[in-house]
């Protein structure tokens, strides 16, 4: 890999994401108010120093709720990407490296699956597993995200299968497992990392959409998507609820998107 050089997009994205991550981690341990406690202040109050994002119609502190919700959205998206990236890379590595019939069949299946929008597939899986549970959302989205990662890594592994340094290592008697993990995997990072940033953003948006529809994460678990659907109902009375929640989603996706853009530019993929 080239010497890591940070460009403007990467820097901006990393700073924004770092700030949000610190806030989210803080939110797991401490929030200004109990996110579920009612009457922490006047009802439907606009942003003040006591309530940074105001309060909703039950007098709950919106900033605390957003912190908790963002934490949950972040955890789900990270788990989904972890499932997708690990399983997808495993499938992609094996099929790309060994090739053959299994490769052909799996890739045709993959083509068929990636043609479908991820939310639609996830909704089908959710309706089978049962709606409204956090772990079902993770499982459903995780499964849906495997094919796209498999496709990306397969190409990378297939391209590196017969390059000279891999041939040399093979002649030196390295096992296939060692070649895959120690010698090829690090070289696929230039495609895997941007894929992870894109996957993360898709996962955030998919989870938020599903929770918005009431079939993803539902109370008592917090979620930005569910909060937005709550906020829509009181938009006229408390616009800061929808704005605070929505802008948090936008910033999260924007930050990670900039990291992806920066990574791609560093690899010279975008002119």
């Amino acid at each position: 890999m080239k010497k890591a050089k940070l460009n403007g997009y990467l820097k901006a994205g990393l700073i924004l994401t770092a700030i949000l991550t610190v806030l989210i981690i803080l939110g797991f341990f401490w929030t200004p108010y109990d996110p579920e406690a009612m009457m922490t202040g006047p009802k439907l109050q606009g942003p003040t120093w006591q309530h940074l994002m105001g309060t909703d119609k039950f007098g709950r502190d919106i900033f605390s709720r957003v912190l908790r919700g963002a934490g949950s959205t972040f955890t789900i998206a990270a788990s989904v990407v972890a499932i997708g990236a690990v399983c997808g890379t495993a499938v992609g590595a094996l099929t790309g490296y060994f090739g053959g019939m299994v490769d052909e069949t799996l890739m045709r299946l993959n083509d068929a699956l990636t043609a479908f929008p991820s939310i639609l597939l996830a909704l089908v899986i959710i309706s089978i597993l049962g709606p409204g549970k956090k772990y079902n959302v993770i499982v459903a989205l995780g499964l849906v995200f495997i094919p796209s990662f498999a496709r990306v890594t397969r190409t990378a592994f297939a391209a590196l299968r017969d390059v000279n340094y891999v041939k040399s290592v093979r002649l030196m008697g390295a096992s296939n497992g060692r070649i895959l993990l120690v010698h090829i995997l690090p070289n696929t990072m230039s495609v895997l990392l941007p894929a992870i940033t894109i996957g993360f953003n898709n996962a955030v948006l998919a989870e938020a959409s599903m929770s918005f529809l009431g079939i993803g994460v539902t109370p008592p678990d917090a979620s930005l998507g569910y909060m937005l659907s709550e906020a829509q109902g009181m938009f006229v009375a408390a616009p800061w609820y929808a704005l605070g929640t929505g802008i948090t989603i936008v910033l999260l996706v924007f930050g990670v998107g900039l990291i992806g853009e920066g990574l791609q530019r560093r690899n010279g993929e975008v002119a």
Partner: protein
Amino acid sequence: MKYAAKRIAMLLLTMVIVSLLAFVAFDLISGDPATAMLGTEATPEKVAALREQLGLDRPLLVRYGEWLLGFFTGNLGVSYSYRQPVWDLIAPKVLVTLCLSGLTFVLIVVVSIPLGLRSARSSGGVLDGARTMVNQLCMAVPPFFTGILLSWLFSTLLKWFVHGKFPSLTEDFGGAVKYLFFAALALAIPRIAMTVRMLRSTVQGEMQKDYVRTAISRGNDRGGVLYRHVLKNALVPVVTFLAQTMAEIVASSIVVEQVFAIPGLGRMLVTSISNRDYPTVQAIVVILAFWVVLAGTVADLINQRIDPRLRLGGAA
């Protein structure tokens, strides 16, 4: 022609596989709908009678065949929660979702192609950085958030349409399209950003090629080369991308219909999932899947018109 026939055969095969999977999956999980429908009143005799009435006592493949035919004859079974034929429930909604997706698609094509070509002609500098930032920001805005803001701006504030009062497509077509336009706008913004970005990088990649250098060195101006030569070559990946866009529109419209209270397929799907109304879910999933696969097929057919090399089975 041979290519087209092959492609259409593949489309049909894919649809048979998708519908079979959907049918079997929902058949396995739904348990016994007769017991579920009767609830506390279930006695073995009543359950058996209802099973016969619903046709559940016959083999799986027979029921699948009948159900598949139902897409042509209009007999898709009975909804568990509404106790009405599924076909009657979803037929008017198909049209609404069709209009919404069509409108969004037109909006995306009309805005992003000129914008993408414009941005491809200039590169580098401060302006380029700013454009990338705006682009990333637009991609980051989820359609349901834009939807909330737009419906507040145009419905509550400007009163251009009444949120929740969707005019019937058959009675007030103009009004319905106006209502759908705002939803289409919310759907289109992130996709426009993606299409512009995609078009830009494709065109710029194409501009680096030898034939472009040759054309320019022979005295053609850059604009002319762009429109006469580059565009044709850059179009194939763009058409494929637009087909994927169609798929994404279908998916996001599920959420946006909810935001704008549009009585479309997506909203019906969400309600049916919550109610565990499997016959309805099944039918909607297959219709949406058909749509997506159809878009892919149409894109392939258009591409082989644009690029005859594809007809020989070569890769794009």
